[in-house]
């Protein structure tokens, strides 16, 4: 093993308002090693990366690089000191309208010492040097907007490496690459590792992690929850440390269902994915869990008519169900509480009452004129039912806490009786008490419909569901009754374990 760390962070803290995002994080990166950083959404990964790369100021703690104190105030300072970051969004790293050569030398166009005039010949010479060092086989005269995503990423990384960094941070670099493109990236990472660069690699994809990792660091709730560096690496342990297993506190009474509400046969939601078949029963609460990007939202949107399946059939209450639009899904009694309420749910110009009535205008109007009295009484009833903390139903959404905003989103869809009630990440950005309230409400009202939750956090599934299904690579890979859960098997399935190795 490599002895001394190139980069070392001790006790990093960061909070936004009252929200403690990093709660004392210590991290070491070694030269010539790929350290994989894992963590669920909101674990603090991106905050950590932003502190290291000089975007955020750290709240507390120290960092050192090659034995010297390292405290960048701007991204440019971090790059000059030798810490280079390639961000998740590929197009942030390149200028699409310029050619490859100019992109590779972009950092030399500004800053002290840069010449006033733009000399194309010199730019091409410098760019060629950078490209050769990286063994980059891309036409330097091509415009970046004409390149594939993978090539753009190569350019972004090559540009970053022109600074000859000691530490390279890659934030979910494969999230928009095909597997062949990803292989090229991995080959490049292998070369960099040989050259002695310390690499911090952030990803959710187990296949990437299996391919690259020398060490795995798991993060959860703003702390490092596990470091794994003994070969062979304990991938399931890392997933476990990331998702947490605080063994659920209140055991739920698991229900079984006799009457099927939704039956899915051979549903395929992505190219090359194995088909999904499942049945959801009356009164049942089923949670589908899995890492980010395994197709949970795609499945939710397929059920709700936002996207069309590639193959397969669905039956709802014994009748064929193939919604073309969200309107058809709602008319059939299928409701979806979409994930990311700010983006997909809240109409910010509307108050609580107007947000709650949004999907059911037709049922709440006479001759197309909205019945405001009915709208108000519905909102009041729902505020009461879900215990939404507000002054009145006329409050603006922006005045509510995150948990109460989420309750309004759930209340919106519980105002009418659903046949199939889908909730995608309903506990995202929700405090623990609101989470309990929502889960209790879902279980208490479950009779007469099928309830389907999509959650990344295992705890949330264990706390709310009668049945837990595991998703991996756009399909269902496991099923557990939430009474005698074999957590080791479940975690192995989440990690894409022995069932099938790297895809």
């Amino acid at each position, binding site marked *: 093993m490599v002895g001394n760390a190139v980069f070392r962070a001790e006790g990093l803290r960061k909070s936004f308002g009252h929200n403690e995002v990093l709660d004392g994080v210590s991290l070491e990166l070694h030269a010539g090693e790929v350290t994989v950083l894992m963590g669920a959404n909101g674990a603090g990964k991106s905050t950590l990366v932003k502190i290291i790369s000089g975007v955020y100021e750290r709240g507390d703690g120290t960092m050192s690089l090659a034995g010297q104190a390292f405290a960048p105030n701007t991204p440019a300072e971090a790059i000059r000191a030798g810490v280079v970051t390639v961000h998740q969004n590929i197009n942030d790293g390149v200028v699409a309208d310029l050619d490859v050569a100019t992109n590779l030398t972009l950092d030399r166009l500004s800053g002290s010492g840069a010449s006033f005039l733009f000399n194309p010949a010199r730019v091409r010479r410098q760019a060629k040097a950078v490209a050769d060092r990286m063994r980059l086989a891309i036409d330097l005269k091509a415009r970046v907007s004409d390149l594939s995503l993978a090539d753009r990423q190569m350019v972004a990384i090559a540009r970053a490496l022109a600074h000859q960094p000691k530490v390279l941070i890659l934030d979910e670099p494969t999230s928009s690459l095909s597997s062949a493109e990803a292989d090229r990236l991995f080959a490049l990472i292998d070369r960099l590792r040989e050259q002695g660069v310390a690499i911090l690699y952030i990803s959710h994809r187990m296949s990437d992690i299996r391919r690259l990792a020398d060490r795995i660091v798991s993060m959860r709730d703003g702390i490092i929850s596990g470091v794994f560096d003994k070969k062979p690496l304990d991938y399931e342990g890392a997933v476990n440390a990331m998702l947490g297993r605080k063994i659920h506190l209140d055991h739920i009474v698991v229900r079984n269902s006799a009457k099927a509400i939704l039956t899915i046969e051979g549903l395929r939601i992505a190219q090359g994915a194995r088909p999904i078949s499942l049945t959801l029963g009356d009164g049942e609460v089923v949670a589908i869990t899995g890492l980010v990007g395994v197709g949970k939202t795609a499945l939710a949107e397929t059920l709700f008519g936002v996207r069309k399946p590639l193959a397969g059939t669905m039956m709802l209450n014994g009748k064929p169900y193939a919604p073309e639009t*969200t309107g058809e899904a709602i008319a059939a009694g299928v409701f979806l509480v979409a994930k990311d309420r700010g*983006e997909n749910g809240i109409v*910010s110009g509307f108050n609580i009452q107007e947000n709650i009535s949004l999907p059911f205008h037709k049922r709440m*109007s006479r001759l*197309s*004129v*909205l019945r405001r009295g009915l709208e108000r009484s519905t909102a009041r009833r729902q505020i009461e039912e879900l215990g939404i903390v507000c002054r009145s139903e006329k409050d603006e959404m922006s005045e509510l806490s995150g948990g109460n905003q989420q309750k309004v989103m759930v209340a919106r869809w519980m105002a009418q009786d659903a046949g199939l009630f889908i909730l995608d990440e309903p506990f995202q950005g929700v405090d623990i008490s609101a989470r309990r309230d929502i889960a209790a409400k879902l279980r208490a009202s479950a009779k007469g419909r099928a309830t389907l939750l999509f959650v990344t956090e295992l705890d949330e599934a264990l706390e709310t569901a009668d049945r837990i299904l595991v998703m991996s690579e756009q399909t269902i890979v496991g099923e557990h009754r939430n009474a005698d859960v074999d957590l080791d098997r479940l975690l192995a399935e989440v990690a894409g374990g022995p069932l099938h190795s790297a895809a």
Partner: protein
Amino acid sequence: MTLRDYAIRYGFIVLLFGLIAYFAIAADGFVSPQSAVFIFQSVAITGVLALGVTATLVVGGFDLSIGSVATSAMMAAAYVMVVLEQNALVAVVVCLLIGAIVGLINGWLIVYMRVPDLLATLGMMFLLVGLQRIPTEGRSIATGMTMPDGSVANGKFSDAFLALGRHRFDFFIPNLIPVSVVVLLVLAVLIWFFLEYTRFGRMMYAVGSNERAAELAGAPVKAYKIWAYVISGVFASIGGILLAARLGRGDIASGNNLLLDAVAAALIGYAVLGAAKPNAFGTAVGALFVGILLQGLTMMNAPYYTQDFVKGVVLVVALVFTFALSGRGRR
């Protein structure tokens, strides 16, 4: 409510009444039924256009083609009656059809061709400005004009059509209220009721505020957007009919100010009652505000060339009211 809240909510209304009070004292004859009707009449056409553009603002869009739709409708009305020698009803129907078709094309460009709203309607504006001149090779249309092929157009504006622009209803005083003012008031009440009280209006606001949320709530977002442009186009063509009826000819040079005045009225409307969003009542008040200001200044003998400057100042002040003072401007 704090003082600031009061300022946001009632500031513009107070300003309006202050303005009326000032002119009442400073300008002789400002407070009279005739003066009031004159103000209404001067804002009637821009007001109708402004109400239409409000519909597109509600769904988060914008329509720059309204001015040229109005002048195209005016030219079409003149062409139908003077050259084709048809009656008033045909002229009105043709105008409304033009408005609806242009609205459909605008909506199609924006929704399906993904052209940004400002650019699509700007393009449509140029297209219409050019198109309306082609049938007469750039000449204005009036009875007795010589056509490009040498013949003489003998049709004339029918009396029924001209009445739309010139007839006045008795209202306590004989011959007081012009038809255009009645049209404005009826359309204002209609669109206000539609936007505030029907489910379609409510969903249009939802589309404008968060399109994705509206779609996930089951709304056919694309249809709503296209309908908004159709409303805008039809309202603009109604404005064009009123314009043609008032002028009694198809005047190639008229209607230059329609677009800017209508947009200004709709944007001023954001500030009325602290709405901070497009709304029909605010638009009507905005149009009235500009009308009162200009009428008052005219009666105080301010030169005509200061008018645009004054309108601009009012618009800028109103936008500051909307976006700086109320938090709802930011997201």
